[in-house]
């Protein structure tokens, strides 16, 4: 019997992504945000999550995908990382899927740029591919590295 994992899935620019369900704290609707001047590009703003201030990262920008078109409001997938919680902005929320480790394959070389570093691998589902997102890496932005170097 092969091992099973549960993934929370969502859609970004017609790509099908998933994060392990255990790292997802909650999924909430679009919230009003406070812009952060001078912040790394991928930071969309700050949201007030029941008194806690959470950084919202626009996953499209983080992954180097084209900007969201029209007035479709993104959804917040709030995930836990070792550095606290962050919200990932996605186009659309999908189901929670049970995937089989046997269907896992390392990320194909052909995935472009930023996305490749953040995708741990691909699950071959019936009819489509699920890209497994590395939540920890996603929450680390280039800005952090730049600061370290400057210091």
């Amino acid at each position, binding site marked *: 019997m092969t091992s099973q994992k549960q993934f929370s899935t969502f859609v970004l620019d017609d790509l099908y992504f998933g994060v392990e369900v255990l790292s997802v704290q909650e999924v909430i609707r679009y919230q009003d945000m406070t812009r952060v001047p001078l912040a*790394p590009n991928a930071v969309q703003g700050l949201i007030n999550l029941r008194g806690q201030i959470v950084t919202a990262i626009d996953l499209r920008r983080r992954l180097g995908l084209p900007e969201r078109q029209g007035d479709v409001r993104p959804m917040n997938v709030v995930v836990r990382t070792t550095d606290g919680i962050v919200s990932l902005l996605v186009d659309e929320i999908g189901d929670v899927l049970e995937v089989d480790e046997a269907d896992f394959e390392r990320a194909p070389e052909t995935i472009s740029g930023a996305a490749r570093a953040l995708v741990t691998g691909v699950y071959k589902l019936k009819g489509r591919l699920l890209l497994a997102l590395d939540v920890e890496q996603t929450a680390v932005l280039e800005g*952090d590295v730049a600061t370290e170097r400057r210091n």
Partner: protein
Amino acid sequence: MQPLDDVVKEFLVESLENLDRLDRALVELEQDPHDGENLASIFRTIHTLKGTCGFLGFSRLEAISHVGENLLSRMRDGLLVLDAPITTGLLEMVDAIRQILAAVERTGAENDTDYGALVARLNELNRGPVPPAAVAAPEPSAVAVAPPDTVTVAPPEAVAATPAAAGREDRRPGVADTTLRVDVGQLDKLMNLVGELVLARNQIIQFTATQTDNAFVGATQRLNLVTSELQEGVMKTRMQPIDNVWSKFPRVVRDLATTCGKQVRLEMVGKDTELDKTIIEAIKDPLTHVVRNSVDHGIEPPAVRLARGKPAEGVVHLRAFHEGGQINIEITDDGAGIDPDKVRRKAVDRGLVTAEQAARMSDHDVLRLIFMPGFSTAEAITNVSGRGVGMDVVRTNIERIGGTVDILSTVGAGSTLKIRIPLTLAIIPALMVATGGEVFALPQVNLLELVRLEGEQARTGLERIGNASFYRLRGNLLPLVPLAQELGLTSQCDPSVVNIVVLKADDRQFGLRVDAINDTEEIVVKPLGKQLKSVQVFAGATIMGDGHVALILDVNRIAQQARVFGVGERSVKATAAAASKQGPADTQTWLLFRGGGADRLAIPLKLVARLEEFATADIERSGGHEVVQYRGEIMPLINLGRFLGGADVAPADPRQVIVFSDKGHSAGLVVEQILDIVSQSISVTRSHARAGVLGSAVIQQRVTDLLDVSAIVRHAVPDFQADSAA
């Protein structure tokens, strides 16, 4: 009864707590007599108790615990094994101690019950292994084994029970009952909840503004008051004076100084500066390390000090104070200082930077290299420091709690380490301002005043030098920083209104231009996510009354980013004292400019009335002098070049003019270019003095001539009495 001394009170609280634990521990030990750890812990408890009793002069207590200690000590050494009689004896001892403590609490002195029997019995137990029969036997037989006089064992026990019981009846709250030890985690939770409550309160207050129901408004006011008081109360529970950490430093310094053969005096200022408990814990180790460093590396041996003309005794000075919503801790020593060139070489040797990088870095940046992992300038590795694991650990620890460390040093005069720690858990009053459509919070502690210019004033009130603008605040030039520009936002402000928030950063003033000024609010400082660590101008974020998130501006960082005070400003305070010994020095603000064949000239900014530009067309001549019509009078223009023996200032259009004013007279000095305004303490070298030049000094790491303003102006305009402060 006489009131209890604080020391005694603390002793009582601690001892009673320990005794409770002792009861449990003894019983556990009886189950497993070979549990060495438990035994050692019991021994320590009794030992501490005995020591403290002796110190406080409770001889009876001391005597009893002494016997107990002897007994325990033998057990610890494996000469005795705990058995039931010994356990009983020890437990009785605990009861007796408790009785005496109760008496102390009631009357301030020990009771006069006779515990001779108990002491005798404990001694008896101590004398040797009890016969095997007794070991197995229950307690009564132990009594039987004891010498005849131990028959009185029972009475003390009975006595023990009675007063305690009696005491319980008419109990007023004892010391132990009024003090609680609370888990810090619990307080953290409480603090967070109060934070939430404050936010909810703010929301309700905003909502109340739209309500007319008097009863509701009244209730809100009460809620407001109670919340404020609750907030204050909870904050207080977490605060501790920094002395809790500092108190052990005199000993540390003394021991270390003795080891190193140095004479060091420790001075402490701001002992009662209160910090949050968690912060106190976090800074304990880094601070100790820094103090040790100062003694070990900073202060020179007495012989060296005397040779350098300093007193044999070195001084390590600790200072703590609140500033800008942060706690500043400064550790200063008057030792050898750190030689930037030595640091450069070392850093290159260790491969931390390339030689080229090192040469390009400013001295201050070079000093900061000591915070890099694997760096140590100590010539010899001593047993206290110099293993290269020093300052980077200090930095890491401080940064972990969101603080910053900086170092300033003057060779030969000493070093200052500055630690700034933010109040991450705190609730602070803040002024809300708006710029570029966003709302920001400015901590009230940084705030000095608000200035609003309208109409005509708004158009003419600001002075410009190149890209920098200034506002003349009661005669002093106040550098202005447009917030929108610093944050890369677009100002949405009506150009006919100028809003200036006058702020204080590093003991200096500057004006922050904002679009609008809202009201003040109590805000809860919340940390920003790690993703935003690179954005240093924000100290955190908060949630406003309407539920929106607002960023909190870090005023000191903004001042630094905008370079309002020039590059060299940070070292001002540390070097001022040192410089004063070496020559004439002054911390003041200097206007730097170029002209008349000199590349860098400086004059004190306080002599400057205005900076103006005049179109060549406006310049007229009168009696061989260039003049302009200025504010309804004729102002002579002085061409700088003529007095310095250089070429005339090139006739640029418009001309840059520095205006001096005195008693209604003005004179203008034509210069080529205004360079900068810096605040710095300088030491003047007179050797380059010549007509019109007072001497030279190093400003911003470059040699700069100081212009003798009064001489020049007097020469050009004989009836002008310029302030001779230069």
